[in-house]
Structure formats: C-alpha cells, structure tokens
C-alpha cells in the first residue's frame, strides 16, 4: 500500500488538523512503518466472521421517550466567550 504525501494531506484535512511540510513528512514516515506492520491482519481469514463492536453481547438499551430535565441555556453557555442572545456564536457555514 502506498502511503504518499497526498494521502497524509487528505487524512489531515478530514481530521481537521493542519500540517506543515515537516509534519507531513514525519507522519508519512510514521504511517508507513505502522501500516506496514498492521498489514499482517490480511493473513487472517475473516470470512463469515461477525464484527464485534463491543466486547460483550448486549441488547440495545432503550427507554421510554419521555422528556427529562436537561442542561439549561445559561449553564450550557457558561464556558464560551462567544455567545449572543442565548446562542453560541460559531464560524460561518455559508460564504
């Protein structure tokens, strides 16, 4: 598998992490080493094997759809400097 610089840039963009040229090269080297070692998993026959998304089989825990008291607006906004009229002020979503 080819771990080139473009792949690292794509991954960093998806991860919302900016990398400079030195970082890109550093992570490329790390990923190459890690993923070459992890490629050993290709040896395992996983045909007809189910995934384990949890270590113990559990039934879905569902509850009645009843409204409960939740965090108030004032408490929710406690930790941000960027608020206006009871709302969070965030970055723009459309140009």
């Amino acid at each position, binding site marked *: 598998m080819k771990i080139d610089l473009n*792949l*690292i840039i*794509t*991954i*960093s963009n*998806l*991860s*919302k*992490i*900016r*990398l400079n040229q030195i970082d890109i090269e550093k*992570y490329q080297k*790390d*990923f190459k*080493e*890690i*993923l070459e*070692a*992890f490629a*050993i*998993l*290709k040896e*395992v026959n*996983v045909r007809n*094997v*189910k*995934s*384990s*998304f*949890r*270590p*113990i089989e*559990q039934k*879905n*825990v569902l*509850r009645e759809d009843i409204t409960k008291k939740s*965090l108030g607006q004032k*408490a*929710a906004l*406690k*930790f*941000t*400097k*960027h608020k206006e009229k009871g709302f*969070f*002020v*965030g*970055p*723009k*979503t459309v*140009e």
Partner: protein
Amino acid sequence: MLKDFIKKVKSGEIKLHKHIKKVIDKCKLIDKEFSYFNLICEKEAIEQAKEIERKIKEGKPGKLSGLIISVKDNICVKDVESTAGSRILKGYKPLFDATVIEKLRKEDAIIIGKTSCDAFGFGSFNTNVGIGFSIPKHPFDKERVTGGSSGGSAGLTAIADFVHVAIAESTGGSIENPASFCGVIGFCPTYGRVSRFGLISYANSLDKIGLMTKKVEDIAPVLKVISGFDEKDGTSLKQEINLKSKISELRIGVIKESLEENIAPEVRKSFLKTIEKLRKKGFVCEEVSLPITFKYGVPTYYLISTSEASTNLSCLSGLRYGQEGDPVGKTFSEYFSEIRTKHFNDESKRRIMLGTFARMAGYRDAFYIRATKIRTKIIKEYKRLFEQYDVLISPTMPIIAPKISEVKKMSPLQNYMIDVLTVGPNLTGMPHATIPIESEKELPIGLMATTDHLNEGVLLQFLKIIEDLQ
C-alpha cells in the same frame, strides 16, 4: 488497611479535617517532586471532610467515610478542571459528576485531586502528556517513566503513606501497565461493570474504569460502590457483581506466547519463580496458547481504538467548552482546524489521523472492519480457554520501567508494541488485574491475571493467593 481507616474515621479516632490537611500538604510535596497531579482539590477536599464529620456526628456515615480517592484526569468531577491531560480542555470544569464520582461522593469518599495521564489516554509511558503538562516520574527512580496512561494514579498509589485508592481507566492497558511498573495492584473490571458516563472517551468499546490499591483487601469495598447499572451509559451491565469466590481448586493457565515474546530476562525469571511457588502450594499451572491474540492483538487494538478515538474527539473543536479562538469571519473547517492544530499534542494528532484513515472510504473494510472481525476471533479464543481454566496468567509488561530518555528514542510503532501483553483482555473486555511479584531488581515486576466476563470474584480470590505468596 482501608477498613481500619474507615472504622477509625467513623469512631472519631482520626480527626478527618486535620488528616485531610496533612494529606494535602503531603500531596503538594509529592507533586513538586514527581508531578503526579494535574490538580489538587484542596478547598473542596477540606469542605468535604467537614461535611463528612457532620454526617458522622448525625450517625449517618457513608460506607467509605473519609476514604481518600485520586481521580484520573479523564474522569469528570463537577466544578473541578477536567482536561484528560490535554491543553484543548484547559479551563473546562464539568457541570456534572461522572457516575463513578457521584457514587463515591454518596458514600463519603473524598476527592483529593486529578492525576496525570497521557493526553486522552494516548500512551503507554505517560510521556505523551498534553502541551504544558509535566511528565510524571517513577516513584523509585526519577529518570524512569511511571508507565501509562494512568501514570499519576500508579505513582501516587506507590508512594502515598496514607490510605488512598486511585480511580483509573484502561483502554488497552492503561491501568495494568503503570501499576506494574510502579509496583501496585491495578484492577480492571469487566467492560460495562462501571459506568462510563462522565468519562472523557478515548475508545468507547474499550474504555473501562478501574482502580489501583496497595492491598488486595482494599479493592472490594470500593468496587462494590462504583459498579452497577447506570441508565446514562448504554453499555452498562445489568448483572449484579459478586466478589465472593471460593473455588477449591483454581485451574490456572499460563499463556505460553507471553514468554516467547521479547520478554526481559528479569521479568521472565520473576514470573517463572512465581509459578514455581504456586506449584509448591499445590496449584496446577498448565501451559495454554492464545496464538491469534498474540500475533494480531496489537494492530487489532490500535485500529479499533484509534477509529473510535477519531470520532469521539471530533467534539473538541473550540466551540462550547475548552480552548477557544476567534471564530468570527472564519469557516467551520478553518476554525476547527486552527484550534485542534494548536492544542492537540503530537500523539493525539497521530491517533486521530490513524483512526480517520482506518475509517476512510476505500480503506474501512480492509482496516477497521477487518479488525472488528479479528476481535471476535480473539474473544472466542479466550472463551475457549475459560471452558477449561479459571484464570489465565502472564507477566503484565515485557520490561521493567524504562528511562524517559529511552522512551523518547522509540518510534510510535515501538511504543505501540509494548502493549502486546495487555491488549488481549482489553479487547475482550474481561476482568483482569496486575499484582507485584518478587523482583530481584530494585524496580517492580507485575503478574497479570485474567478471568472470564463477570468473574471479578475469582480474580480477587487469585490475587489474594499471589499476595500471600510474597
């Protein structure tokens, strides 16, 4: 130790508020020398002590009256800065207690402080601390690491001369590893036994809250309090915990691959000596094999854990809580990237990106999904052995605590491979623990024991046997 202490607090023989002040002074000195705390809760602990004294006078003491608890910094404590060891959460004071804290407070345990960890639990040596945090030092050799990621918990447990229990957390070995390096007991219950509500997630299908103590007898009273179903955690177990076990002839399986890996000679020697002691006491110890776990466990663990981490940490973006910048005039992508780039440390970035890659279109089936299927095979491999054995044992770590300078020279892959012995029980979510065994070196060596799901009682029975051998 713990029971006597609580008895003395309840009888008034120990004046709690005076005791707490002394303990806080000691913790400050310990922290100055070893960097085990991200925060000491001085004011809150003294207030709690006074409140508990009042409850004792009224004849309403809790089960853990006055017990001093340290809390790994990835567990939320109401109104106390909880950062998971990362600068991106600096200043965040949760508006709620994690369920585990709520239960401890209800029984009058006192929260003494938040202990150091690798940022978000991303590390095996506690050297991957967040930007601006200090690396904790080994309690018996300051040039060495405590192990990670619950390094502060282990170091404090080892060095504290006061009765104390550490609340720690393991994803792939973060309780066992530092407890083994620092020479204390680390206990990790079945996945789902202790609610994860209020735990700052690393990997939700692997994270487990557990504890560290100096004595086996101190585990049960705390574990009873913190375990139990919690409707706030969708993976919380409903089965009652049973900590009593008196199996007359424990069947012990010795994992053969754990001695074939690159095990340091002193670790092998100590472990084999303990097996000899067990045999002399009449226990049957038979060699068993976990080939899939040992060959594929580390990549399986890292692909699943980083995949989950990459989504769990997407909520940290400079909005709502934690570190902020100025979002005005920027796009979402520009702003989130700016905050995350500035405040995540190197290893956090590496694991988020590795997990993002493993879940990317075109790679997801070959990496993440494949790993979840191999996890199934690993669980089955353990389950088959538990049809014949009650407990499986191995050394906890392949080496003794390395020097900080040695760890800094290791590549990320070399770092990951150090978890080879601990990823198995963590992937299977089975209860496991480490306990110190006789070491010819000045540095501790641990033995790790694993039992089948829900069998915490058997694990405690076995730990007591090992403790009595020393």
